[in-house]
């Protein structure tokens, strides 16, 4: 079992719902300070978005963040270099599209991520079927490969994905790309489908915008992922302190 999963299972055993915020690396110069602030605010793990020119699974907010990051010259290497300069108090999870790793070299990517403390990777366009080679290198470097499931996932795939995912299973709350949304979507049903086949921690993401939504999602699941809503505040100029407050408000909601 990967280190990430050990940590996250521990969390669950402690009865703590996981709070996992997403940051686009390089979208602002002080992005690592936002990561730290989130940890102070109560995040249990952090997704580090590595920008890609064609983010097929992302809505406008994260697209915009990626664009800014790319314009600022962000690359996988600059990100890793920045991450290497400090140690974070919670696991980091890289999130990006497959082409970034493919181009950097699969083995080299996994190694470099591990070097700078990354313990998991989410590659939304890498299907289970295409993931074998990537998983092999991740295994070598103790990187958990995290898979998504969606409301459209079939029972047979729920079983295979839940079995394959490591660290946690990323349950899409709705049929949508990342972005802000209302309501709880299909989260409960999706989580239940995962649980029917596996005891891997299952976190809900996609469209969780408010603390209320997060509270509700956490009720049915083991944790929540906050992406666009957070990234938007940062794009709009939020300070690390504001990020800390932001995270704290979600923390409070899911801990209720």
């Amino acid at each position, binding site marked *: 079992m990967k280190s990430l999963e050990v940590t996250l299972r521990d969390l669950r055993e402690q009865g703590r719902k996981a709070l996992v915020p997403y940051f686009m690396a390089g979208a602002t110069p002080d992005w690592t300070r936002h990561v730290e602030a989130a940890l102070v605010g109560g995040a249990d793990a952090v997704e580090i978005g590595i920008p890609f020119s064609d983010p097929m699974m992302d809505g406008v907010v994260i697209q915009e963040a990626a664009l800014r990051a790319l314009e600022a010259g962000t690359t996988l290497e600059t990100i890793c270099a920045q991450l290497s300069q400090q140690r974070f108090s919670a696991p980091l999870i890289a999130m990006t599209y497959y082409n970034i790793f493919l181009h950097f070299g699969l083995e080299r990517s996994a190694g470099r991520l591990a070097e700078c403390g990354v313990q998991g990777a989410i590659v939304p366009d890498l299907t289970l079927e295409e993931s074998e080679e990537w998983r092999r290198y991740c295994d070598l470097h103790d990187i958990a490969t995290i898979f*998504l499931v969606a409301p459209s996932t*079939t029972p047979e*795939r729920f079983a295979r994905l839940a079995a394959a995912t490591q660290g946690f299973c990323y349950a899409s709350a709705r049929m949508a790309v990342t972005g802000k949304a209302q309501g709880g979507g299909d989260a409960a049903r999706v989580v239940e489908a995962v649980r029917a086949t596996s005891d891997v921690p299952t976190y809900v993401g996609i469209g969780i915008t408010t603390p209320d939504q997060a509270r509700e999602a956490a009720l049915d699941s083991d944790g929540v992922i906050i992406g666009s809503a957070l990234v938007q505040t940062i794009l709009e100029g939020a300070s690390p302190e504001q990020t800390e407050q932001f995270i704290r408000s979600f923390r409070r909601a899911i801990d209720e």
Partner: protein
Amino acid sequence: MSQHRLYMGAPSPSGHFGDFGGRFVPEALMPACLELEVAFVDAWSDPEFVQEYRSVLHDFGGRPTPITYLARLSERIGVEVFAKREDLAHTGSHKINNVIGQTLLTRRMGKHRVIAETGAGQHGVATATAAARLGLECTVYMGELDTQRQALNVFRMELLGSKVVPVTSGSRTLKDAVNEAMREWVTCVEDTHYCLGSVMGPHPFPWMVREFQSIIGHEASEQLSERGVGVPDLVVACVGGGSNAAGVFAGFANTSARLVGVEAAGGAAVSNGSPGVLHGMKSMLIQDEHGQIEEAHSISAGLDYPGIGPEHSYLAAEGRAQYVGIGDEDVLDALQLLSQLEGIIPALESAHAVAWIVQEAGRDIPRGSTVLLNLSGRGDKDVAQVREILRGRS
């Protein structure tokens, strides 16, 4: 040329052509891709479906398109050129072959809506056309820049009853329209089919679109036989995503004919690209050193795509087909040459293939060779643009 391997059959079960192809999509779309694969395999082996596809293309689409011997061009360049006239198909290009297949399949799958991406608007207009015919709802995603450059095509789609959504992300052109269509597909995959416009995207699209386009090559092969020309020495087609090329190559992949795909020099995924993953497929892509996809640049909107269909990447890797690049200047010259010598104004895309033939006649193409040129579309859509450019010069 002796061959041991058979080309252009079905891909591997996971949708690979050698190292290329596959499926690289959000999990949310996987069931739709799998459903589509099953539906396509089922339909394509159902004689009734195949018959309907053929008869719609015959009665509505204008097939078979003829083969025209280009007598004056041939005399001029010393090579015997036969043109497969996809410019005469309904809506003005080969795009109709694919959309007829996909819309019939949409209906068969019980879906009542299609979405599509489009660059200059050719595939969008074709999809809107096929959707109108079957009474399917249709929404077309088109880069905002392209909606401005091709306002008339936007109006055409609207006339045909489709909704056109300008895409404001990224470079606001074709590549982003594909991203956006994929994103939208995630939200409506239940009742909506994504009618992809070329031999690209996740499995089964590259294979399915090639199959729907292979009618070009099969017709051409039969027509050339009937004329006593037999197997041509070369088969030449322009390549954007690669659907017209795949369609015509399919008729000759297992013959002695040399296959040549002509890319826009500013978007030559095979010549200047490297392997990568985009839009659901692994293929040759134009990208920077960090794996960021670059914008293609071509005078012809239809070739303005940084990738190429995965089967072409495979054919290139195998050496079965060859891919070359042609620059904008030569394309303009070729468009004028064909117009004046043959009374056919080709699409700028198709003019790339003409330009390469003219350039290589007597060089890479030995004198006296027979060449099958796939004339993928008509130039009517391009004359305003060509006029501006030529005016700017004089």
